[in-house]
C-alpha cells in the first residue's frame, strides 16, 4: 500500500493538502484509491496532517507497517505547506524503514515515480536577486592595530632555571588570566620553585612566557602534573601538545636517570574542561575517578587521570574511544532534533552523555546575504535532516528501535524552520512508534550545562538565558518547573549586538567580533546608559531588560562622533568595549540581584550570547565574591545544537508525550519545558 501526500492539490477555491492511500497508480489518475482526505486550511497542515494520516489508516483497516512507499510532490515554489509535507514524509519513511520519494508536479497532477530516489528540494530561483554587501558604518572609527597573529617559529620551550622577579610576574599573570579562582599565588609559585620538587616547563613567545606547566616529582617514579596552561591569545597553536611533550621529556629524563622503567603520572582537571581532557587522553591518560565538588568557585567535579605506561612504552596512547560512556540496557536514550534557526542539529544523548551528534549549518549562505534567510534555512533543514538522523544513529551504533523518545524543538524560533523539524519528528514518531516530545528551545539552552558536567543540574537555581532572540531570567523551582522572573521588553542582548555591529560596519553575526575588539578597548570611555536599572524601575521592571534604548544611544553616540575631527574621535575598540560593558553590566547586576533576593546558591548560564567572554568573566567574578556556584555550558554548546534538545529527554520522560497535533510556535510562555 502506498501513502501519497499532495501538498498542492488544486480544489475549486484554493490550494489544499490531500492525503491518499492507493494500491496502484496509473498515469494521470489515482486508481484503486481507498480513501482520500483534504486539508484546506494551510495553517492547519502541521497540526492535522499526522492526525488525518492515522485516521485514514484506521478507517481503511490498514496499519503503518502496510505502507511500502511514501510519496509527496515537489514544486519550485517556496511554500511552507510543501516543506511540512516533505519533512513529514521523510521522517515517516525513516521511521518505517521504507522508501520516500519526491516527484515533480505537473499541471496534470502526474503520478509519482516510485523508482526515483527522494528528490531534494530544488533551489529557489529568487535567490539570484539578492546581493550582499558589508554594511556601511555611520562613522569610521579608527582601529588600533590589533595584535598580529603569532609567528609559529617564535615559540621556544624553556625549563626555568632561576626565578627572577620578572619571570615570577609573567607566571603569575598567566595564572591570573587562566585560572582566576584556582590561581597560584606568587608566594606558592616561589615556594614550589625553591622546593626542588617542581620543574617549571614554559613556552616563551618573543621572550615572554605564554604557556606553562608545573611538574612535581613525588617519588623516584611518581609524578604529578600540577598545571597546564596556554594564554588565550596563543591558543589553537598546538602549544598544549608542545608543552606536554616537553613535560614528558622531563619525566623520562628524571626517571631514566634514576634507572626506572615503570612509573605513574597523575593529574586532575575540571570535568567541564573537555579540551584539556582530550589532550590528556591523547597523551595516554586514563580517567580513573571523578571527585565531587573538588573545585571551588565555581563548584565543580574533578576528573583524576593517570598515565601508567609512559615509562614502559614511551609513546602516547592515541586510542581515545576506549573510555567512552557505555550504554546500559535500562539507560534512557533520546534522539534530539533542533531546527529553530539556521542550524540543523541532531543528537543521541543518554544520561547527559552524548552518544552521537551531528550539526549542519547554513550560516555561510546567510553571511553571503547578510542575515538569516528563513527560506534558505528551511530548505537546508529539509535537505540535511534525514541524513543527519541516519548518521547520528550510525555513530551511536544503535537502531531507531533502541531510541526511547524523540525530542524536537517546537518553539520559539523561525516558524518555517521549526515546522520542518516538528513535521519530521512527527513522521519519525509515527513510523517508528516512539513517543515524541515537543520542547522549548530555551530550556534546552538552559540545561545545556548538563552536557559539560555530565550530571543533572540542581533542582533549584537561577537561570540566565541570553541570545539573539532572548534575554531572560528564570528560576528553576522543581524538576520541570520554572518560574519566569523577567526578560527583555524590547530587543534581546544579542540582537542589540548585531544591530550595533551593523552601524559599526561589522557583518552579521557581530557578537564575536565586538567581543574580540572590546578586549583591546577601555570599557569606561563612554558612559552608555544602563537601562531599567534606576530605582523607579524597582517595581515594574525589577528583573526585566531593555536594550533597544542602548542601541539608540549607540547610534546617537556615533552620530556625535561623526561631527568630530578624526583625531578627536573615540577608538573603535573603546567604543566596542564601552557598549559591551553596558550590556554585560545590566545582565550581571540584575542576575546577581535576583540571586540574592531569591536566595539562590547556583546560577546557570545558557544561550548563544553566553559565549561572550566579558559576560562569563564578570559573572564568574561576582559569583566568586558571593560564594555562588556558576555553571556555564561549554562554548560549543552555547549556540544551537541537537544535543541540548536530546538532553531534555531524560527530564521529560516521566511526562505523557505530546499528541501529534502539536504545532510550531514563534512565541510561547517561557516556563513550560514541553510545549
Amino acid at each position, binding site marked *: 500500500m502506498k501513502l501519497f501526500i499532495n501538498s498542492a492539490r488544486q480544489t475549486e477555491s484554493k490550494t489544499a493538502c490531500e492525503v491518499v492511500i492507493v494500491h496502484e497508480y496509473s498515469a494521470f489518475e489515482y486508481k484503486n484509491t481507498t480513501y482520500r482526505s483534504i486539508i484546506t486550511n494551510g495553517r492547519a497542515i502541521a497540526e492535522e496532517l499526522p492526525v488525518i494520516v492515522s485516521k485514514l489508516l484506521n478507517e481503511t483497516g490498514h496499519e503503518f507497517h502496510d505502507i511500502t512507499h511514501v510519496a509527496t510532490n515537489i514544486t519550485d515554489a517556496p511554500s511552507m505547506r510543501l516543506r511540512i509535507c516533505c519533512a513529514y514524509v521523510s521522517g515517516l519513511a525513516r521511521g518505517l524503514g521504507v522508501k520516500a520519494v519526491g516527484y515533480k508536479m505537473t499541471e496534470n497532477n502526474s503520478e509519482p515515480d516510485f523508482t526515483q530516489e527522494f528528490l531534494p528540494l530544488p533551489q529557489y530561483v529568487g535567490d539570484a536577486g*539578492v546581493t550582499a554587501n558589508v*554594511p556601511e558604518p555611520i562613522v569610521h572609527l579608527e582601529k588600533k592595530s590589533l595584535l598580529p597573529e603569532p609567528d609559529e617559529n617564535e615559540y621556544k620551550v624553556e625549563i626555568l632555571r632561576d626565578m627572577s622577579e620578572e619571570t615570577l610576574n609573567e607566571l603569575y599573570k598567566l595564572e591570573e588570566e587562566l585560572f582566576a579562582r584556582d590561581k597560584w599565588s606568587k608566594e606558592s609559585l616561589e615556594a614550589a620553585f625553591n622546593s626542588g620538587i617542581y620543574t617549571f616547563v614554559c613556552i616563551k613567545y618573543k621572550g615572554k612566557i605564554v604557556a606553562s606547566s608545573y611538574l612535581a616529582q613525588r617519588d623516584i617514579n611518581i609524578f604529578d602534573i600540577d598545571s597546564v596552561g596556554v594564554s588565550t591569545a596563543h591558543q589553537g597553536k598546538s602549544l598544549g601538545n608542545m608543552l606536554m611533550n616537553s613535560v614528558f621529556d622531563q619525566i623520562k629524563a628524571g626517571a631514566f636517570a634514576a634507572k626506572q622503567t615503570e612509573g605513574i603520572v597523575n593529574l586532575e582537571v575540571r570535568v567541564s574542561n573537555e579540551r584539556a581532557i582530550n589532550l590528556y587522553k591523547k597523551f595516554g591518560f586514563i580517567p580513573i575517578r571523578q571527585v565531587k565538588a573538588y573545585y571551588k568557585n565555581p563548584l565543580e567535579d574533578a576528573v583524576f587521570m593517570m598515565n601508567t605506561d609512559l615509562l614502559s612504552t614511551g609513546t602516547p596512547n592515541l586510542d581515545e574511544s576506549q573510555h567512552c560512556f557505555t550504554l546500559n540496557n535500562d539507560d534512557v536514550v533520546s534522539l534530539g532534533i533542533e531546527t529553530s534557526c539556521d542550524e540543523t542539529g541532531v543528537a543521541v544523548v543518554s544520561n547527559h552523555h552524548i552518544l552521537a551528534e551531528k550539526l549542519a549549518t547554513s550560516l555561510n549562505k546567510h553571511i553571503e546575504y547578510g542575515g538569516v534567510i528563513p527560506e534558505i534555512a528551511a530548505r537546508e533543514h529539509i535537505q540535511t535532516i534525514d541524513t543527519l538522523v541516519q548518521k547520528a544513529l550510525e555513530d551511536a551504533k544503535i537502531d531507531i528501535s533502541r531510541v526511547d523518545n524523540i525530542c524536537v524543538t517546537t518553539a520559539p524560533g523561525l516558524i*518555517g524552520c521549526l515546522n520542518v523539524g516538528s513535521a519530521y519528528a512527527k513522521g519519525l514518531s509515527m513510523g517508528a512508534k516512539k513517543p515524541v516530545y515537543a520542547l522549548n528551545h530555551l530550556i534546552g539552552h538552559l540545561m545545556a550545562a548538563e552536557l559539560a558536567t555530565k550530571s543533572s543540574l540542581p533542582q533549584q537555581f537561577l537561570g540566565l538565558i541570553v541570545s539573539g532572540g532572548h534575554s531572560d531570567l528564570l528560576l528553576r523551582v522543581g524538576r520541570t518547573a520554572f518560574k519566569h522572573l523577567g526578560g527583555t521588553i524590547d530587543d534581546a542582548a544579542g540582537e542589540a549586538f548585531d544591530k550595533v555591529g551593523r552601524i559599526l560596519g561589522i557583518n*552579521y553575526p557581530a557578537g564575536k567580533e565586538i567581543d574580540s575588539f572590546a578586549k583591546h578597548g577601555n570599557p569606561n570611555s563612554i558612559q552608555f546608559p544602563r537601562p531599567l536599572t534606576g530605582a523607579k524601575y524597582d517595581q515594574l521592571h525589577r528583573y526585566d531588560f531593555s536594550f533597544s534604548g542602548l542601541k539608540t544611544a549607540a547610534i546617537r553616540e556615533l552620530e556625535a562622533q561623526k561631527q568630530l575631527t578624526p583625531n578627536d574621535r573615540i577608538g573603535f575598540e573603546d567604543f566596542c568595549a564601552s557598549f559591551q560593558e553596558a550590556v554585560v553590566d545590566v545582565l550581571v547586576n540584575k542576575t546577581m540581584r535576583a540571586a540574592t533576593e531569591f536566595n539562590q546558591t547556583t546560577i546557570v548560564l545558557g544561550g548563544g550570547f553566553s559565549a561572550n567572554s566579558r559576560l562569563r568573566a564578570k559573572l564568574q567574578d561576582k559569583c566568586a565574591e558571593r560564594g555562588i556556584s556558576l555553571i556555564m555550558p561549554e562554548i560549543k554548546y552555547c549556540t544551537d545544537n541537537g544535543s541540548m534538545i536530546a538532553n531534555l529527554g531524560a527530564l521529560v520522560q516521566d511526562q505523557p508525550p505530546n499528541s501529534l497535533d502539536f504545532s510550531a510556535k*514563534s*512565541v510561547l510562555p517561557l516556563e513550560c519545558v514541553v510545549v
Partner: protein
Amino acid sequence: MTSANILKHFSIQTLEELQSFAKAVAKEIQKGDTVFLSGNLGAGKTTFAKFLCVNLGVTDQVVSPTYTISKEYAGENMLVLHIDLYRLISDKVSVDYNYIYTQLENSFYKEILEEGIAIVEWGESIANQTIPRIEIKIVRNVDETRAITMETVR
C-alpha cells in the same frame, strides 16, 4: 489597484503622545489590514508596534520580532501578526522584492489576515506589492521628537 491615498502628518513630543497616537490608529484598524512601519534603526517602530498591540488587546509581552522575523499574538478580537523584515533586507545592496514577499507567506500572512491584522516593520521593502495597507513612517528628529506620516493605500 485603486489607490485613494490619504496623507496625514503628526508631530510626537513624548512617549505618552506616541501611545495615544497608537490608540487612535488601533481604533481605525480592521481585520484584514496590514500596517507598514518604516523608519531608521532607533526611530521607534517596535515601540509603536508594542503600543498598537496593547491597544488591540494583546496581553502577552510584545518584544522585537527581529530574530524570529515573525511573532503571532492573540488580541481581543483578532490575531496580530508582528513581522520584522530587517534581517531579510539589512546589508543588502539590492533585494528581490518578490522574494521578500514570499517570506510573508511563510508566516501564514494571508491566512492570518482572514482572522486578524499584520504589522510589518521595514514594510517599504515590499512596497511594490499590491497590498492594501496603512503606511506609517517615523522620523527621529535631532531633539528626540518624532515626525510621523500616515498614509492609507487601498
